[in-house]
């Protein structure tokens, strides 16, 4: 059964808190049974009355008062235990969720960085946060309630057979009918409905996103009606589906509630027929009264199971999303890591596709990069430039061929050690909510303050520090302290300068920085790149005319390779790109330069 699988997976995530969960289950079950005793007290009172009906004054009033207080006592004890059960279940729930979150945090930290490139932080955060919240309700409420619900019928069964067994069986009929309907509904639900519902919900979520995202366009172009129509259609479809489904369940659901509330409909004729048939009338009266008293409990519990069954399905979806993350394979670590003897980089027949079956982002690429030289990657977007740097940084591992550094396959190196040899300077710069000093020292925890300040100076960050209230100790992201994109890039460059690795991977993209930042970033780059083995993605071809080697990538292959001079002489793809570039930089808005 699917539900069982959910449960066993959940229990797996609980760890030691299985114990508190079990305590909670036991408490909840015991509480249910004790609660039953309160009903028995009511019954005992009835019994006392019936037995002393011949002489009303023989009624043992003390006994009845005693039973009354006992009922109160049982009810309160039952509450106490249920409260405790909930407390324990919540302790389990909160801790399990916390454990799960921590486990997810540690797990995603070991995944290849490519995974994070493909799964944006917002999405992962939502899975880690929201889906575990779902499980919280399941563990905290539904499991103990379920335990109570299971315990009661068992106890109930036991009581039943003390009294008239025929009447017990008659009372069981509607309960069994109810269960039958429940099973039927759940089966129906879990198959068609859940899928369709999920799809419908996804559609509407996409429609909302598109609508909200498009609102600015819609406003600007005065096209409200049209886009609103699309949104409306999605909402309507969702509503219609929900309603249609709900109404299709109208009779079944009604029958379920009629069945569990309808025990009296079986008890009354059963009681009358059996009574009329003769036998022990006293026992018959008492049995009848007993069941009449106990019915409401059954109803409460069966109604509760019904309402929690839909949540179980939601929880399963949450668990699946979480498990999908946990099933991602971390980057394999070599058993005997090797150290490179130098920093010559070689791509040997490297092929790679981002997804199985997708077009190859790199196809049989081979090239050599000499230690201490600058290699520029150029070519149209989608040509494979960033795949080269991504593979070098081991965001992913190659699928065919090998990348060797100093003769050693990067996969045979200790990941961390390799990362200590590489600086990655890409466009997307994020800084921690820490002081600038701490941010710069993130790779070099042992760096002295002087070294850090020197790196900041070399990265042209002096004017950033000057304008901040606490200088280099200002914490980034606190109120009023925001840095522009260009400024963040310079801080990131200071980081890389301090790290001072032999290999630098660089995405040259300062296009959107303002004039001043661009100039300063370039000066910082001069400091960073000095004497390093550099692989850079270049957009503005003017920056790489002095590069030692330019590789032109097209559709995953290197189509040309050489120095600027050589490639210009070749008069091929690169030369064409260069001419195009030349004309683009001479563009004047409002001028008459366009053809």
């Amino acid at each position, binding site marked *: 059964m699917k539900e069982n699988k959910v449960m066993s997976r959940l229990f797996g995530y609980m760890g030691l808190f299985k114990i508190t969960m079990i305590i909670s289950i036991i408490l909840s079950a015991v509480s249910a049974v004790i609660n039953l005793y309160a009903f028995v007290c009511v019954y005992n009172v009835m019994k006392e009355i019936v037995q002393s009906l011949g002489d009303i004054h023989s*009624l043992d009033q003390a006994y009845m008062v005693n039973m009354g207080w006992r009922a*109160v006592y049982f009810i309160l004890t039952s509450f106490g235990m249920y409260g405790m059960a909930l407390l324990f279940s919540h302790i389990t729930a909160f801790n399990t969720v916390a454990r799960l979150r921590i486990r997810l945090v540690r797990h995603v930290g070991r995944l290849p960085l490519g995974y994070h490139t493909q799964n944006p932080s917002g999405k*992962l955060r939502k899975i880690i946060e929201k889906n575990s919240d779902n499980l919280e309700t399941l563990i905290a409420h539904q499991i103990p309630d379920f335990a109570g619900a299971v315990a009661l019928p068992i106890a109930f069964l036991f009581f039943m057979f003390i009294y008239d067994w025929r009447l017990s069986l008659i009372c069981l009929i509607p309960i069994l009918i109810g269960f039958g309907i429940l099973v039927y509904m759940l089966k129906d639900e879990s198959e068609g409905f859940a899928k369709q519902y999920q799809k419908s919900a996804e559609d509407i979520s*996409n429609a909302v996103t598109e609508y909200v995202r498009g609102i600015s366009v819609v406003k600007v172009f005065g096209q409200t009606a049209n886009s609103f129509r699309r949104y409306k259609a999605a909402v309507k479809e969702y*509503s219609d589906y929900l309603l249609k489904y709900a109404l299709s369940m109208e009779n079944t659901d009604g029958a379920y509630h009629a069945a569990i509330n309808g025990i009296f409909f079986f008890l009354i004729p059963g009681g009358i027929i059996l009574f009329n048939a003769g036998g022990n009338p006293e026992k018959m009266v008492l049995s009848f009264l007993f069941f009449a008293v106990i019915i409401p409990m059954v109803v409460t519990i069966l109604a509760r199971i019904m309402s929690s069954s839909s949540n179980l399905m939601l929880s399963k979806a949450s668990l699946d999303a979480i498990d999908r993350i946990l099933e991602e394979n971390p980057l394999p670590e070599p058993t005997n890591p090797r150290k490179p003897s130098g920093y010559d980089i070689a791509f040997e027949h490297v092929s790679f596709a981002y997804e199985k079956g997708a077009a190859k982002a790199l196809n049989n690429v081979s090239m050599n990069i000499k230690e201490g030289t600058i290699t520029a990657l150029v070519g149209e977007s989608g040509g494979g430039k960033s795949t080269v740097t991504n593979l070098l940084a081991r965001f992913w591992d190659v699928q065919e061929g090998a990348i060797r550094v100093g003769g050693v396959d990067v996969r045979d190196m200790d990941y961390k050690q390799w990362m200590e040899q590489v600086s990655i300077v890409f466009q997307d710069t994020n800084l921690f909510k820490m002081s600038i000093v701490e941010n710069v020292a993130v790779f070099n925890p042992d760096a002295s303050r002087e070294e850090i300040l020197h790196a900041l100076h070399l990265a042209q960050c002096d004017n950033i520090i000057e304008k901040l209230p606490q200088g280099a100790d200002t914490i980034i992201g606190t109120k009023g302290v925001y840095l522009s994109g260009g400024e963040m890039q310079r801080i990131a460059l200071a980081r890389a300068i301090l790290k001072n690795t032999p290999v630098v991977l660089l995405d040259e993209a300062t296009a959107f920085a303002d004039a001043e930042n661009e100039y300063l970033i370039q000066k910082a780059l001069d400091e960073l790149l000095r004497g390093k083995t550099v692989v850079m993605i270049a957009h503005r071809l003017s920056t790489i005319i002095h590069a030692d080697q330019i590789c032109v990538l097209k559709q995953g292959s290197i189509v040309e390779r050489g120095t600027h001079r050589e490639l210009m002489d070749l008069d091929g793809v690169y030369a064409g790109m260069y001419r195009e570039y030349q004309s683009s930089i001479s563009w004047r808005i409002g001028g008459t330069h366009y053809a």
Partner: protein
Amino acid sequence: MLKKIYYISDEGNRAILKSGLYMGLFNIATLLPVILLAMVANEMVNRYFGITQGDIPLLGYWGAAFVLLLAIFFTYRITYRNKHLTSTSEDMRLRMDIADKIRKLPLSYIGRRDLSDLTSTVMDDVATVEAALATSVAEFIGGFLSGVSCLIVIAFYNWKLAGSLAICLPLVVIIMSLCRVISEGTNKRNRQKKLDISDGLQEYLENIKVLRSSEKMEGYQNRLAVTIKRVLTGLVLYEFLSGSTISFSHNIMRTGVGLVIVTGSTLLISGEISVFTFLLFLLVAVRIYEPLTKACESLGVMISSLVSAKRIRELMDYPEQKGAENLHPETFDITFEHVSFAYNEEDVLHDISFTAKQGQITALVGPSGCGKSTLCRLAARFWDVNRGSVSLGGTNINDIAPDELLKNYSFVFQDVVLFNDTIYNNIKIGKENATREEVMKAAKLAQCDEFIHRLPQGYDTVIGENGKTLSGGERQRLSIARAFLKNAPVILLDESTASIDPENETKIQQAIGRLIENKTVLIIAHKLRSIVECDKIVVLKEGQLLETGTHEELMKHKGLYHRLYLLQNESLAWTVKKSI
């Protein structure tokens, strides 16, 4: 009251109240068999003691039971039907109203609130509210009505016994409201701690590339683990305070069962009540609390749904921008007069005055954060200025309805929004009644023609969510095609859009060049060399207007523009140094 809290329609309000009424009827229908059971028991007792003779009439009782069973089924069914009809129609109406409202909000609001935040407002909050409406409100009303009315009815029968059943109810109300007060503080603290977790996770995931290659990974994870665990005590405490108080109050309520026994037995012996009455009350006692418990639980759900309802209300109550619906300006000059603007307290723009003339190109220049983009957005009334005025052809734009105003504007910014639709329809957004020829002509002018023909279905290719199958440059050119189609007299342009796709830069440049001919053009410029031929250059720094003039004038002036221009020329000559 419901209407105000949950933003439902009059109709919905009535329907929900009706649901509650039906729910009450259903509850009563489930209570009525008690009378039947007590009567049958009474018959048995009478025969057992020989008070009555003969068989108990089976058909009469069974027939009555059948009627009650039908009553249960049908009251449930009508409750169910009504509940779902109401909740789905209200759900739909609410989603529509919210969408409609979002449409009317100033663009600044949409820009300021994260997309996912806004989406989740629509989705999650509506779902929460809808769930509360669908079940909880009806259950609360129904439970309360049926519970109380039953108590009143049996109070006529015997007020002492009814009193002992009800005596604990006020206590329950007091406990529940007390627990709200006590637990609210913990709840607030927990929310803060949960936000900390959220922020921590986000920072961690954003910086994971850096962390992976540094020594900090483990330390960071450990710190995050501490943050995650920090909320635990508070959560357990809150649960203890609120959760257990609720179940405590439920059980306090149920102690009435015992009190009825105690009172009843005394009354029975004193002969004040009959055996039948006592049995009846005992049977009622074990049932009457069920609807009341449900009402309490539903009240809890309703209260917690208030957070969502409040968020929806905030959105719905956000002031809309208003203004004249008709605008026929004679010129399309945009004039800024002593404009000051602040997002929060601090001025982002301070006392800016200049005019962007029709048929001219006006470029905005300055270091990032100087207020260029803000100025552009103010020109289109994304926000309203704090002081001074912006006018279009002499009319203060604050007096023009945003939709009307925007008819005159086209934007070519970096954030292109495309719909999951065909290329054709995406361009056609520019002009609703455009012919196919017009659309294709616009596409040609925007240099889209060539890449569109490479697509499998040409103009009828569906481009995926937000056009994810296209490159940045292609997306940009589509947005320019839209602008061609719209042919608005005012164009606001971010120059950097041209270099969004370095490989196709010249194509975009050509398209932009054509687009802006003879329009009022306001450009946010980054590459100073590209604006040397502009009619007017406005130089900004930290929200102040420093200098205006043509390129030549500003170069002579030797101010900030002069310095930036020289700097940029130096950048342009930068190359990586050859290795030694």
